[in-house]
């Protein structure tokens, strides 16, 4: 039999359990970041394509959620920092190799733009509440005129944000579960999918619902493909990756992963959306909510399980 144990120094309550250093705020942040990325991507894409009138939920109503999601996400992130009052150090340097540095800068740019985006729709969203100051009205007008420019900026930024939430994790080769190239695209696709689901929830017209239903369906299929791809990559990988895969397919995270992410979060909503598209009556809120929950659980599973996987011990 083989035994591997700590004689001393590591079996301390402050050391080993806290090496699982990232707690629920990180999962929440990754989810909200992905959601905001999805929402901003669709809003700007539709704007660039000049279809704002046809899809008001996507460009207008759903995009209120992105600054809120980003703010909450940032708060969650801040909450999980242990040396909080030095957070400004993030902005004294740009570290090309550090995904977290990238993320910090992208967030610094995208969060204000998301607010400005919503502000550019202020009078349309809140027609009853007039802006009191003239300069604000002018500013809104200025933003409205530059909406397309904002959209051009937001398309790459939102993709970077969406990919970054995955790359943040996949850059850690010390955690075999995270250390695969699929995680970036997977989180991007999942973010887009949750964005589409949110738009479905808020859309009022059948046309908009259907379009985003189709988009979401495509994204879900893509996401399922990426998950299969990820698992196959691990299956073909080294011992540590095999162990990581075991956590998902035959370990403590299997129920969460297969039950909530794959079945309830992807397959069931895909079927429901398909049925709806064929013409049967399905309350669209159900698949959309399932997708959102699935997206959140995916972040939790990956963050928690990833921290258990290690090279040593």
């Amino acid at each position: 039999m083989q035994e591997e144990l700590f004689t001393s120094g590591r079996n301390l309550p402050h050391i080993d359990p806290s090496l699982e250093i990232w707690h629920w705020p990180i999962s929440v942040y990754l989810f909200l970041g992905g959601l905001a990325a999805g929402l901003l991507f669709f809003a700007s894409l539709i704007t660039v394509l000049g279809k704002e009138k046809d899809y008001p939920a996507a460009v207008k109503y759903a995009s209120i959620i992105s600054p809120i999601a980003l703010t909450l996400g940032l708060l969650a992130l801040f909450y999980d920092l242990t040396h909080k009052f030095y957070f400004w150090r993030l902005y004294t340097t740009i570290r090309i190799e550090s995904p977290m540095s990238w993320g910090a800068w992208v967030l610094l740019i995208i969060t204000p733009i998301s607010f400005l985006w919503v502000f550019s729709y202020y009078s349309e969203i809140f027609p009853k509440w007039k802006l009191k100051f003239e300069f604000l009205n002018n500013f809104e007008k200025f933003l409205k005129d530059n909406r397309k420019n904002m959209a051009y900026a937001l398309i790459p930024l939102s993709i970077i944000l969406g990919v970054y939430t995955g790359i943040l994790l996949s850059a850690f080769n010390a955690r075999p579960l995270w250390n695969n190239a699929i995680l970036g695209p997977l989180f991007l696709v999942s973010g887009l999918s949750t964005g589409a689901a949110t738009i479905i929830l808020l859309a009022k017209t059948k046309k908009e619902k259907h379009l985003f239903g189709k988009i979401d369906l495509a994204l879900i299929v893509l996401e399922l493909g990426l998950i299969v791809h990820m698992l196959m990559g691990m299956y073909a990988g080294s011992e540590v990756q095999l162990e990581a895969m075991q956590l998902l397919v035959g370990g403590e995270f299997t129920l969460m992963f297969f039950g909530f992410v794959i079945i309830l979060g992807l397959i069931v909503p895909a079927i429901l959306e398909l049925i709806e598209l064929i013409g049967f009556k399905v309350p669209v809120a159900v698949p959309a909510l399932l997708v959102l929950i699935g997206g959140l659980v995916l972040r939790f599973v990956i963050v928690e399980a990833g921290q258990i996987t290690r090279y040593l011990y």
Partner: protein
Amino acid sequence: MRYAMVIDTLKCVGCSDCVVACQTENDVPIGYCRDWITETVNGAYPNIELELKSERCNHCENAPCVRCCPTGASHQLVNGIVLVTGDECIGCGACIESCPYDARYQHPDGYVDKCTFCHHRLEKGQLPACVSVCPTKCMYFGDLDNPNSEVSELLKNRKHKTLAPEAGTKPNVYYLI
């Protein structure tokens, strides 16, 4: 100049003196540590092998913690030592997640802390605290760029390994086996 530590597992008895010495030398709070001892047992009674070793930050040449740090608090000196500057660290934990050796921990004051190879002692010409106290004299420290240093000689003449070389970090702590 490339500092390295060489630890002879054939002599280490796992007494953990290195762990306490580090704690008192570096004011590591009670309940935390920068180094630790592992025990590996293989075989079946009565054909058993036992390996005891003192582990710590490997001061990797290809240090993922330095790469991941968003503020530059984790940095590498020209002599290879990887350090954390406490008041540049935001406590995001990225370096902890990036370390295949789990060699870092969050200090109760919030910043991330780890082995410094007793940088402050080296500057005064002293050996790291762990090396200087080891009762079995199983730990060696020196410059790998100097082919005549004790550590270079040991690595030339003895069978050795590093931990988790497959992680690609190029560690600078070597174990004689």
